C-alpha cells in the first residue's frame, strides 16, 4: 500500500483528500497541518509521495520542498505541489529545481488519484 503524506494548513482539505484517496485507491494517507510537522513525518514515515500545499503559515511549501530535497531520506520522495494559485514564477521554480508536478486547487479527487498513481507508476512503485 502506497503511503501518501498530505501537508496543508487547511485541515478540511487534508481531511477530504485523505478520505477521497483512501476511498478511491489503496493508499495509506497521513496528514500534517504545517511544514515543520510535514518534514518530520516525511523523515520518519518515509511516504511514497507527498502532496504539499505551497501557501502555508510558517514554513511555506517551497521551503518545505527545498528542505525535503536536501535531506537524504526524503530527497527521492516525489512531491506533488498543491496550490490554490500557482503563479508563473512558482511553476518555473518548481519545474527547474525539482522537476516536480503541480496541481491547482480545486483539484478533482479522481484526477488527483490518477496523477498520484501515474507518478508512483513512473517511479516504479506500482
Amino acid at each position, binding site marked *: 500500500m502506497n503511503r501518501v503524506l498530505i501537508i496543508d494548513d487547511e485541515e478540511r482539505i487534508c481531511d*477530504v483528500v485523505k478520505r*477521497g484517496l483512501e*476511498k478511491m485507491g489503496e493508499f495509506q494517507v497521513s496528514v500534517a497541518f504545517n511544514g515543520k510537522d510535514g518534514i518530520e513525518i516525511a523523515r520518519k514515515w518515509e511516504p511514497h509521495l507527498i502532496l504539499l500545499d505551497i501557501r502555508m503559515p510558517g514554513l511555506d511549501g517551497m521551503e518545505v520542498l527545498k528542505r525535503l530535497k536536501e535531506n537524504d531520506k526524503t530527497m527521492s520522495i516525489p512531491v506533488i505541489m498543491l496550490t*490554490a494559485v500557482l503563479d508563473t514564477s512558482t511553476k518555473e521554480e518548481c519545474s527547474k529545481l525539482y522537476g516536480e508536478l503541480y496541481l491547482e486547487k480545486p483539484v478533482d479527487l479522481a484526477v488527483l488519484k490518477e496523477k498520484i498513481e501515474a507518478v508512483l507508476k513512473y517511479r516504479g512503485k506500482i
Partner: protein
Amino acid sequence: MRIQIKLSILFCLCFLIFMGALLFFYVYENRSIGIIFEIDAKNTEEVFDRVNNIIGDSLKTFVYDYTYWDEMVAFVRNGNIDWAKFNIETSVPTYKTNAVWIYKLDKNLTYKFQNLDDSFYDVLPLPKIEISKVFEKSAFCHFFVNTPKGVMEIRGATIHPSEDKERKTPAAGYFFAGRLWDEPFLKNISQATDTNVTVSTGLTTSPARMNFKIGALVFYRVLPGWNGVTASLLKVETRSKIVPAFNDFSRTMLFMLVGFSIITFLIIIVSLIIWVIRPLGIILRSLSKEEPEHLRALSHKQDDLGRIARLIQNFFEQNSLLISEIDIRKQTEEALRKEKELSESIIDTAQVILLLLDTKGRIVKFNPYMEQVLGYRLEEVAGKDWFETFLPKDIREETRVVFANGLRGIQTKGHINPVMSKDGHEFQIEWYDKTIKGADGNVEKLLAIGIDVSERKKVERSMRLAQLGKLISDISHEINNPLMIISGNAQISLAPTTEEDEIKNSLKVIFEESQRAKAIISRVLKFARPSKGMVKAVDINHSIEGVASIVEHQFKLANIQIKRNYAEDLPLVEIDEQQLNEVFMNLMINAKEAMSKGGVITISTSLEKKFVRIDFKDTGSGMSEEVKQKLFEPFFTTKKTGTGLGLSICHGIINTYNGLLEFESQSNMGTTASVMLPWHGEAA
C-alpha cells in the same frame, strides 16, 4: 566764519572806535587847552603891557610935566644951576630916573644929571646932530639906547612955556630923561607883571612861543632906537596857571576814561569768554565730535546757552535713539530683505506649485514652477477664476467645496485633483493649503501648495495593478481552498460506497465552506467598492456604546475590562452607522485578540477642531514595525483564523468619509487605534 572770530572782530572794531573817540577827545582837549592858553597868553601880554606902561608912565609924566613949564624955559635961557638942582635933582628919585639932560636949541648941553657913576652917562647917548631930528614929527620922543650898564629908556620933549600945553610955540630947548633898565628894574617889572623879564641881546623878534604842556609862554617886546631901528628886545617869560591845571584835569580825565575803557573792555572780554565764547566752544566741540558729555557743565545753567545745551543734549539723545532705531530698522530690513530673498528664491526654485487665490477663487499669484508645469504666464491668467481656467469641468464643483472648506479652516492635506495645462495635458496635483489672514483677522487669501504627482500616480497605478494581480491571486487562494473542500466532499458524497452519515457530514462541510466562500467574496467586494450606505447624522458616543455593550460579555469572559471616557456635547457626524459599527467592532476585536491574557481597553472620544476623534487603547502585545507597515494590506493577518481583510475594509470605510484611521503601537506596549471623522454640523 566762527562766531568767536566774528565776536573778536566786532570787539576789535568797538575797541578801535572807542580808541578813536578817546583820541578825538584827546585832540579836542588839546585844542581846547590851546585856545584857553592863547586867550590866557593874550591876557598876560595885555596885562604885561599895561603894567609896563604904568611903570613907564612915571618917566613919561616927568618929561611931560617938566617941559611945559615957564621956569624950565627960563632955566634953558639962564642956566640957573641951583634951580636945576633944587627942582630937577630932587625929583629924580620920585620919577625913578637915572639921568637928565637939557639941551639948548643949539644942541649945547645946559644941564646934566646922572646917578650911575659912569661918565658915559654925562651926555645924552645920542649924536648931537640927531637931537633935533627926534622931534621932527612930535614934541615928544621915546627910544632905547644900549649903554655900558644896560639898556636905557630915554624920553625927551621940547621945552615950552606953561600956557602952551599944546606945545605949538617954538621950543626953548630939549629935555631928556633916562632910566636904566638894569636888573633891579627888570626884577621890579617881573614882580609887577608876574613874569620873568630879561633883555635879549639879539635883535630879531620872534612870535610868542607857547608850550601847552607846561603852560609856558615866551613873548618879546621891541625896544626901538632913536632912529626907529630896534635897539634891543625885551624877553618876557611867563607860565600859565590855568593851562597846567586844565592839562592835569584833562589828563586825569583821559586816564580815567582809558582806565574805565580798559576795565569795561576787560569785563566785556571776560564776560564774552565766560558767557559766550567758552560755552560756544564747548557746544561746537560737542557738536563736531558728537560727544554730548561735554555739555554736562553747561546744561544746568539757566541762561540761553544752558537751554541750547539741554536742547542739544536732547537732540543727541534723540539722535542716539534715532540711530539705534535706524540700526535696528536696518538690521530688520536686512533680515527682512534676506528673508524675502530666501522666500523669493524658495518660491522661484521650489519644485512645487505655489498658488495664491483670493476668497473668490481668483488667481492672485503663482510661482515660476507653475508657469513651467502648466504653461501659463501670470499676466495671462491673473484675476481669472482658478477652477474655470485650470480644472476639468467634471471636478470643478467638487474642488470648489474643498476650496470653501479650506477658507473655513478645514485645511486641505493631500487632496489630489487633475489640473489642465495650457497645451491640454492633464497633471495630477496633490494639494495642501493654508489660509492667509488680513490685519482684521479675516481670511483674505488661500495659499495652495501643489505637488505634481502625475508620475507618482502612474507608478501607483502600476503598483495598484500589480497589487490587483496579487489580490486576485489571494482571492483565488482564499476561494479555491473552500472550493476544493466543497468539491472533494461532493465527490466523496457521490461515491456509491459512502455511507449516509459521512454524506451528511460532507454536506455540512460543503454548506459551511460555501458560506465561507460567500463571506470572502462579500468582504472582497466591500474592500473593492467601499461605498457610502445609509448616511445620517450619527451620535458617535451612542454608536460606540452600542458596539461595546454587544462585546462586553465576551470581553469579560476573556478577562478584559472596557473603560469608557466619552466627551460630552460631541457634534453629530454624517456617516453610515452600520459601516461605522463594523469599524468599531473590528478595532475592538483586534484589541481583544491582542490581549490574550486579559487587560483593559479604554475607549475615548474627543473633539479636535473639525474632527471627532475616537481612540481604542489596549494593553495588549502591540505591533512590530513590520506588522504596522502591512497593517492595511488585504489578506495580511497575524491570526490563525483571520481573513486579513478587516483593517483593509475599515480603512476603506473611514477614507470614504474623508476620515483618518491611525495606529500608535510598540511591541509589548499596547496599541492605540484612532479614528478621526470630520463633522460640519451642530453639536449633539
